[in-house]
């Protein structure tokens, strides 16, 4: 096994699948010669040719729409949004065409829309959004938000092989931040399986994406004080692994939900609602949430820090939860 960054792991999944299955191809802006804004697909065009690493005009609706059309015609396209923020320009294609096709026509639309999302890196309101909840509410697309390199590889493989449209959120702040052992060659993690990243007994933090790391460092800190926190990375929002989350809630009786997306109508609400309905009797404390303030993600580091969640905020909330 090799030590790979999150970005390398995703590239590895794409490369492996492209070698294995000639139906897989990539399309997006500046992905070929330039290798993508984050160089994730660097040199791919040399390996696979420019028609399988297709540079496209600045037309997100055309990119997503063309991916759908190609998927209807036997391919397995992976469309890049240069930043996930720009998916708002291809939104209609995803929620109205891709999401409804299986239901209406009984035909699969095997495609992935992927790209860098999230904040905390001093981008601006238009290069930092966490919009996964929109697609979780779209009924007909799967939504994947990996937090670790190996998971990112395994989930990307599963997404490409899935017969349904998948929106795959990569967190740009994680791209080069963490390295871990990533299995070589084909490696698949089924969609819809949460992962207990750390077992614990006193409380559960349910999270995904960047917030998993906030949860882990909060858990590290608290461990020094003898408090044992269970950390669950749901990994995919749709399908949602309700059972794993409920089992943990029932076990620890205290749940904090953390995500980087803004609070209101974020996916944390959904998770809280499921727990409040199905694990009600097991709870010893209110379900708490840590999320971004309900604003655009601001540019200046001082403001961004104030608005976004981080390890400290998660730890403080966990303390509050434990003290309840």
């Amino acid at each position: 096994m090799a030590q790979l960054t999150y970005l390398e792991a995703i590239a590895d999944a794409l490369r492996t699948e492209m070698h294995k299955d000639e139906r897989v191809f990539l399309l997006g802006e500046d992905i070929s010669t330039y290798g993508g804004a984050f160089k994730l697909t660097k040199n791919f065009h040399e390996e696979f040719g420019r028609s399988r690493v297709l540079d496209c005009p600045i037309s997100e609706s055309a990119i997503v729409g063309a991916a759908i059309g190609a998927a209807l015609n036997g391919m397995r396209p992976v469309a890049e949004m240069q930043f996930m923020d720009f998916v708002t320009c291809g939104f209609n294609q995803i929620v109205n065409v891709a999401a409804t096709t299986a239901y209406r026509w009984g035909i699969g639309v095997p495609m992935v829309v992927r790209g860098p999302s999230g904040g905390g890196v001093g981008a601006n309101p238009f290069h930092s959004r966490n919009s996964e909840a929109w697609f979780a509410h779209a009924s007909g697309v799967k939504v994947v938000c990996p937090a670790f390199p190996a998971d990112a590889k395994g989930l990307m493989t599963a997404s490409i092989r899935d017969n349904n449209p998948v929106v795959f959120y990569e967190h740009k702040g994680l791209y080069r931040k963490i390295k871990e052992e990533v299995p070589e060659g084909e490696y698949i993690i089924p969609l819809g399986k949460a992962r207990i990243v750390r077992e614990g007994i006193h409380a559960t933090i349910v999270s995904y994406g960047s917030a998993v790391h906030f949860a882990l460092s909060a858990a590290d800190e608290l461990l020094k004080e003898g408090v044992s926190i269970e950390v669950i990375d749901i990994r995919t929002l749709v399908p949602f692994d309700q059972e794993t989350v409920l089992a943990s809630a029932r076990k620890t009786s205290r749940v904090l939900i953390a995500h980087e997306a803004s609070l209101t109508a974020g996916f944390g609400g959904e998770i809280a609602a499921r727990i409040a309905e199905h694990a009600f009797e097991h709870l010893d404390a209110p379900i708490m949430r840590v999320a971004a303030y309900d604003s655009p993600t601001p540019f200046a580091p001082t403001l961004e820090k104030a608005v976004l969640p981080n390890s400290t905020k998660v730890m403080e909330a966990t303390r509050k939860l434990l003290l309840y």
Partner: protein
Amino acid sequence: MNSNKPLDLSAKVPPIKPSKLLSNSRRIEMFTYMLQAREFDLAMQRLNRQGRAFGGVYSQTGNEASSVGSAYALGDKDVLFPMHRNIGGHFVFKQDLNTLMLAFLAREGSLMRGTDGTGHYADVKKRIYGNVSHLGAMIPVAAGFVLASKMRGESVVSMTYIGDGGAQTGEFHEGVNFASVQKLPLILIIENNQYAYSSPNSVEFACVKLSDRALGYGCFGVTIDGTDVELVYETCFKAAERARKGEGPSLIESITMRMRGHAEHDDFSYVSREELEYWKKRDPIDRYQKYLLTKKVLSLDEITSIRTKLIDDIRSAIDYAVDLPFPSGEEGFKNVFID
């Protein structure tokens, strides 16, 4: 032709421009599809009046030449992404009446299991791909479909449609531009039937011809009389030839009239009597019938018997479908995702 100026109400109806590419038997076939489209339309209108239809009924009366002539120009590997007034194309692509009627009425056993209605269905074996309501959305999809064919070295042309209104959507622009850059074998017929719901062309665009947009994409563009089926056929046939040669997409503005309301609930009182009169004289079926009679390709008797057969067939499809129940509610919980 100028697609965005006042009508010259006194203008003579031009003669059909015969296509050298058509044999008489193929002429008869086209004409039959046109009749079938018209009769299907009339039947749907009737069902609607009787309260036996379900969902909106979007008439294609006036659109027979445009829809049939274009689809008829395709080959047997090509694919069709029809829009809401392209029932003629479904017939050209040999959709059978029972299947079609079931789909329109969303009855048990229909292709979409009741999840959706009207002509939105896809029938992959027949190479018919449906649409969504959101105008313009299928243009990039139809382009992507043949992008895939092209990648595999297959020669497949994809044909889709948009209205004089829908051509104003961003997805029209992105789709046509993408196809032009990739030189995809895409034929987009802009059916300018004078109205987008209640909106005349002047509300929608300010250019002289919608096909003038082709210049801005670097693809082929032409505006034609969409009530002359042979002209539509020939124009589209050549577009398909170019497409197969790798010369890229064509934007064909086909000018005709929507002879009824946007859907049957609309009394189209915003259309003047004179305008309807003008177009009535250009009824695509009347025009073609006159031509076929004059050229003795068909006799009136023959036409009557074709029409009678068509009407009978439609009637039995309706009888077959209309009393069938809607699909069971359970269907609503299936296939959001498929394996």
